[in-house]
């Protein structure tokens, strides 16, 4: 994270999640076709051939069942110029997104045209498919379109697809990779809290109406909906309210099971937070057990909650159940 005097804390955040989807009969044929360098359209109830084939007819909403191959070249219906391509787009150099009406189709397909310069692009221009060298049954098998009058950019033309009819539906699952980059900002209260951790302090805030003390602090009291008040220090000791023993291994696990994940209610706070209880056998952890924060060495401290390595027992007598019953 970066930090200036009063500004909120920021951190780059990249989210990645690939969606794995079963394709169903229509998209399975479409993507199997692309893998075999063949574009397949769906025959609609009004006789038009749509590319890509929709799963359901736009007029009757009945499943689309008839498929029809179309050409892998056609004409540009409309286009827009992408001067600065974004990550993941079909080309890394400037290109055009276009609606391309393939010969034999009645509805246009959205894809990229590798035209080099916007001056090359015009509505009505002829373009042909440039196929990816390695095809996996994805829309990216059709790498992009290129102006039909130029020499193929992908080397000598490959043999045309062998089958004249629709390809067998060999591709049944599609993966859509998603990767999103954010500049993630903490709230002002989270920023104050994060800066406190770096100094080895735990800062709380309270509600001016109900006087509940929140750790970590939040922008508004969830009971009263009013902004919380100026931060103050709270102790790094407290009690375990409730806990679980983690026995199940999972991806990214950093501690060998069994270990304890617990809600810790700091002395003077009204809201417990989740943390680790270590330095004691998992089977010895109890509700009401007194614990103390174990801080990472100063050189390893950050704005993150991980600056507190874990909590460990203080050895003091357990808290009375009545004292934390309302926090469960």
């Amino acid at each position, binding site marked *: 994270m970066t930090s200036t005097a009063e500004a909120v804390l920021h951190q780059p955040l990249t989210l990645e999640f690939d969606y794995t989807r079963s394709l169903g009969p229509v998209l399975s044929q479409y993507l199997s076709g692309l893998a075999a360098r063949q574009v397949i359209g769906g025959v609609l109830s009004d006789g038009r051939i749509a590319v890509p084939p929709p799963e359901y007819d736009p007029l009757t909403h009945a499943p689309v069942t008839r498929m029809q191959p179309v050409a892998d070249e056609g004409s540009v219906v409309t286009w827009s110029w992408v001067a600065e391509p974004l990550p993941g787009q079909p080309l890394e150099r400037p290109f055009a997104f276009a609606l391309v009406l393939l010969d034999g189709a009645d509805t246009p397909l959205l894809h990229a045209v590798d035209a080099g310069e916007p001056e090359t692009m015009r509505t009505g221009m002829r373009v042909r498919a440039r196929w990816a060298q390695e095809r996996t049954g994805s829309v990216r098998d059709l790498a992009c379109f290129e102006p039909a009058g130029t020499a193929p950019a992908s080397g000598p033309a490959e043999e045309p697809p062998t089958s004249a009819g629709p390809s067998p539906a060999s591709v049944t699952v599609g993966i*859509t990779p998603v990767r999103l980059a954010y500049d993630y*900002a903490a709230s002002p209260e989270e920023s104050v809290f994060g800066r406190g951790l770096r100094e080895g302090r735990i800062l709380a805030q309270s509600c001016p109406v109900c006087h509940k003390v929140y750790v970590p602090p939040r922008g508004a009291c969830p009971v009263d*909906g009013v902004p919380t008040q100026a931060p103050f220090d709270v102790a790094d000791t407290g009690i375990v309210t409730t806990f679980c023993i983690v026995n199940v291994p999972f991806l990214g696990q950093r501690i060998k099971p069994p270990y304890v994940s617990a809600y810790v209610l700091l002395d003077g706070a009204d809201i417990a937070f989740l943390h680790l209880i270590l330095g004691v056998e998992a089977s010895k952890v109890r509700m009401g057990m007194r614990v103390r924060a174990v801080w990472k060495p100063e050189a390893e401290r950050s704005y993150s909650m991980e600056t507190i390595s874990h909590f460990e027992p203080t050895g003091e007598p357990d808290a009375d159940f009545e004292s934390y019953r309302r926090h469960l």
Partner: protein
Amino acid sequence: MRDVAVVGFAQRQTRAFDGSPNCVELLVPILHELWEQTGWTKADIGFWCSGSSDYLAGRSFSFVTAIDALGAVPPISESHVEMDGAWALYEAWLKIQTGEADTALVYGFGKSSASTLRRTLALQLDPYTLTPLWPDTVSIAGLQARLGLERGAWDEKAMAEVVARSRSNAIGNEYAVRRGETSIDDVLAQEMFADPLRRWDCAPVTDGAAAVVIAATDRLPATCRRPAVIVGIAHSTDAADLGLRDLLRSPSAAAAASGAGGTEGVQVAELHAPFSHQELILRRELGLAPDIAINPSGGALAANPMFSAGLIRIGEAARRIWSDEADRTLGHATSGAALQQNLVCVMEASA
């Protein structure tokens, strides 16, 4: 049908909000403003509904953390849509129709600046055939704009007129992030951003939040002198596949207008058109007469906070009734690629 009126509206918009993606810091003062407008407290609200998106926030359950701003103890009746707040308003209006609530507070929020908005929005497209190509919203709007330019549906000057009026109108809007006295020639002198679109043809990336209070007319706040009664509200959607649509038209916008009872007699229309040429499509589809005042607030070309810009159109349109500037107004919201989904809300000074 129960008569329901728009009785409160507050908003915050900014180019890049330096704060948390759940926008609690914006929602708290917005709600405070609504309590002042209505003289109500949270106890007077029977139903709460929000519009936002985790894709925009970059975190899961961002709408749950935003509830901190409401003060949800004792428990409240609450719902959420992953859509613009205008659709949350539709849900709230339905809730009041069912008789389960008499009043509702609707809000929308979004921090568009946290990621590359036009890229993130590729996730609203077909995940099999389109998202893997990451077509951005500006490029898709460009396909639509060029189609209209080359087929004679509109020309550059008509698009520039929309831009110039939006920017000039926005001078009076303290929340606009783009504003200034602008002529058609000023617009045409701008360089191309994504040919055929200039930067000013595209709504600015905007962070913000907004909230609206609605109430059955037998349960109005005492402060409400001239409620904006909803005489018609409807929404509709077109096919998701861009190739199956006539991009020069928006049948769903026409269907929403018709479902809302038509637009006759409307004096002020707040249209949610994130690209200049889309206002031209909407004016035709909604059947708006030429003398209607369009977007006195500056519209989406002045500020387009994701998930609240549509709700803001309804709030701005209602405000013209409260202030005696108009007797019948229209708020419109859009969602999806190239005007795919549309909502129309027509309001009147009295039912």
